[in-house]
């Protein structure tokens, strides 16, 4: 498919954007709650996979 053949429903896109924002914030809340209900060791092990992958020695 070429760009000229693509059909984009802007109303649908706007709804996608709204849902995406909501889902991102839902995850932020979910993760904050996870931190509150799990040991520091448990959540930090998961967080470190992301952080350490950025800073490879």
């Amino acid at each position, binding site marked *: 498919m070429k760009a000229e053949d693509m059909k984009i429903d802007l109303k649908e896109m706007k709804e996608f954007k709204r849902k995406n924002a909501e889902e991102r914030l839902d995850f*932020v*809340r979910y*993760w904050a709650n996870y931190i509150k209900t799990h040991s520091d060791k448990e959540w930090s092990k998961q967080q470190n996979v992301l952080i350490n992958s950025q*800073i490879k020695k």
Partner: protein
Amino acid sequence: MKYFKERNEIILDKEINELDKFVIDFCSLLDNYVLVSGYVSILFGRSRATEDVDLLVPEINEEDFEKLWKKIYDNGFWCINTPDSKEAFGMLKEFAIRFAKEKAVPNMEFKMIKKDFDRYSFENKIKVIINSKELFVSPIEMQIAFKLFLAADGIEEELRVDKDIEDANHLYNLFKDKLNNNEFLKIINKMGINERLKLLK
């Protein structure tokens, strides 16, 4: 995570990551400082990476800066802006300067305290103890307010995906039972961002 509000202290029993090590290494060279902005959220678990770590230090004179510069270089850090300490000191009066170790990312954004809200963060800083190491961070109330303030201007829909709003929400959800609401609302009022409170959920 244990927050002892009465003594402005948080104890973290987390596994230290490469970013924490970098920050602890740099901060151990300083007598007085406060960490602000994104790293504070990351230190408390926010699942995102960062290029830089913002740090504020009290005003420093040229002689003390020279001594600190030597200490920083002796410990393997280097200044991204300039290799010349005099030039760096000149820059510091106006801007932040950045120090890195080996690679340019991550780096410490080193800034002198100039504004009242910087001073507030410094004077009310929280001691964070991580596996017997210490770091000093800005009070949570100020962090949440500052992140709400920092987010780009836009309609509510756009703001919700802003990383600063996400950082604010992370800290808010984590510490909402422990916040000094009176102090928090005073900061929000001073920053003129009452409208943005609705972005905290």
